[in-house]
């Protein structure tokens, strides 16, 4: 029989320490839906998504029951819409966004990702048309998520695309000003975007992906924090071991759920994303892990080192537990979604500059950060450019998801509710990078991209 202590440990992880499967995301390729006629394209997209993912939500619920572990989200990601709707006008792209929402409603899923464009090297007419309606698409739908990849280590940085994103973010904030500028929470700007990411808002089904695939994202900051607490006064090598063992256990559950979902949905298993994804629930925070490691507050000097060690140990523990690892794989530091980060920002210990440094050593980037509503567009562009540069130079994924909360100032906060949490509005350095951004063009790829 299975060891009693093991059973109680597992149950304790789930009931007391918020261990859950954050998401089962079904990637669905839409290549076979391509049509020059927008109405026909929309019909085919709707039919393909609703047929392929017909049983996703019910299957998720069954697995949840069978293993007794919560599966918080069931999601769908699709081939980047800028590609599928390549011949569309801006109005056509908007129509596709509404089609995605209709499919999400039919399926009862939490989010649908893939209103996305890959423009790291340049923009097609289609991509430009799609990007031009991102604010409207996000404001007029509830569950559609959008992402734009503006740079890669291989291609360099497309500054023209970054300049468009600052304006798209501001407009999305304005269009949803009566709802805390919520549209911005569904829009993320990437460098080196992964093509099999199960997490929103950046999930899409990449061009090299199969017709459909099951990608799973695990969670469990609370479990790691408790394990560190139990480990007591040990040195950092021992602490790394504790984190690795915990990450292994968490990831094994992710792999189990992924295998079962793939089998039941008759869909190939894609990847498990080795992530520590926090929620606003007390005890489910990455910041608390860092504080448990010995920092007085997340954001203190030493935070980057602690986070680097945590992130590395999570990967080392997780990689052996899964047959295929992918997605973002790392500790997330979304400010509004993490009770400890919110507290650290409110007490002034955690600043935007420190967060930027932290993103150099973990996944993913400046995530869910509320900034003053009157922040100039170019300052937003500058924040994006800096964050993207960290990703490009370090050959890693970085991303920016900012909420310039319309009509609000630094020191106030915005309440999104649910998994998106509460964001304290952070003050910014507003000296202008306008002239640099407006030069446009591309920042060349770094020398170490030349690997052949």
């Amino acid at each position, binding site marked *: *029989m*299975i*060891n*009693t202590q*093991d*059973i*109680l*440990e*597992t*149950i304790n992880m789930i*009931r007391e320490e918020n261990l859950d499967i954050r998401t089962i995301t079904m990637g669905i390729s839409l290549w076979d839906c391509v049509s020059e006629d927008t109405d026909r394209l929309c019909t085919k997209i709707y039919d393909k998504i609703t047929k392929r993912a017909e049983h996703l939500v019910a299957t998720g619920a*069954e697995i949840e*029951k*069978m*293993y*007794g*572990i919560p599966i918080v989200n069931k999601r769908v990601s699709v081939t980047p819409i800028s590609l599928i709707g390549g011949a569309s006008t801006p109005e056509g792209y908007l129509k596709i966004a509404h089609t995605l929402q209709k499919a999400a409603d039919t399926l009862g899923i939490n989010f649908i990702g893939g209103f996305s464009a890959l423009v790291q090297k340049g923009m097609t007419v289609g991509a430009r048309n799609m990007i031009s309606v991102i604010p409207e698409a996000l404001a007029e739908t509830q569950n559609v998520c959008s992402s734009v990849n503006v740079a890669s280590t291989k291609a360099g940085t497309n500054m023209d695309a970054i300049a468009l994103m600052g304006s798209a973010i501001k407009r999305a904030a304005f269009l949803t000003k009566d709802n805390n500028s919520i549209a911005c929470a569904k829009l993320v700007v990437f460098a080196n975007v992964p093509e099999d990411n199960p997490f929103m808002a950046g999930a899409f089904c990449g061009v090299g992906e199969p017709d459909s695939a099951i990608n799973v994202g695990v969670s469990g900051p609370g479990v790691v924090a408790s394990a560190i607490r139990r480990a007591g006064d040990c040195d950092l090598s021992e602490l790394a071991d504790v984190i690795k063992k915990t990450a292994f*256990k968490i990831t*094994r*559950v992710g*792999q*189990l759920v992924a295998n079962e979902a793939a089998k039941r949905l008759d869909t190939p298993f894609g990847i498990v994303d080795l992530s520590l994804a926090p929620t606003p629930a007390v005890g489910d925070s990455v910041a608390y892990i860092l504080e448990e490691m010995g920092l007085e507050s997340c954001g203190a000097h030493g935070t980057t080192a602690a986070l680097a060690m945590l992130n590395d140990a999570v990967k080392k523990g997780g990689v052996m537990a899964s047959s295929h690892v992918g997605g973002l794989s790392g500790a997330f530091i979304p400010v509004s979604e993490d009770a400890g980060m919110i507290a650290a920002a409110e007490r002034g210990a955690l600043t935007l500059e420190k967060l930027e440094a932290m993103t150099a050593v973990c996944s993913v980037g400046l995530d869910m950060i509320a900034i003053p509503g009157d922040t100039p567009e170019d300052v937003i562009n500058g924040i994006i450019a800096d964050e993207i540069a960290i990703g490009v130079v370090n050959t890693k994924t970085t991303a920016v998801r900012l909420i310039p909360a319309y009509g609000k100032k630094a020191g106030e906060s915005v309440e999104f509710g649910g998994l998106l949490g509460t964001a304290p509005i952070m003050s910014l350095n507003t000296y202008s990078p306008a002239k640099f951004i407006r030069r446009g063009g591309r920042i060349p790829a770094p020398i170490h991209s030349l690997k052949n």
Partner: protein
Amino acid sequence: MKAVITVTGKDTVGIIAEVSAVCAKHEANILDITQSVLSEYFAMIMLADIDRLNIGFSDFADTLAELGKSKSLMIHVMHEDIFNTMHHI
């Protein structure tokens, strides 16, 4: 297929009998039982063969959870694989 049934909470008279009765009614064959007291908590763990279960897994889990609620106990039914995968390589 085997399920692990865990009962945790304050000790009560007759709880094993009642859980066993539900198992018998739905043809879950009890293979093993262990019981321990962890700090103030009573913890009983049953391993049951559920291949011949005469209701759905989910209904079986709900029935036992309801029984738990009525006795102020926590009763969980989980597939054994979650424990095997998590704790054994």
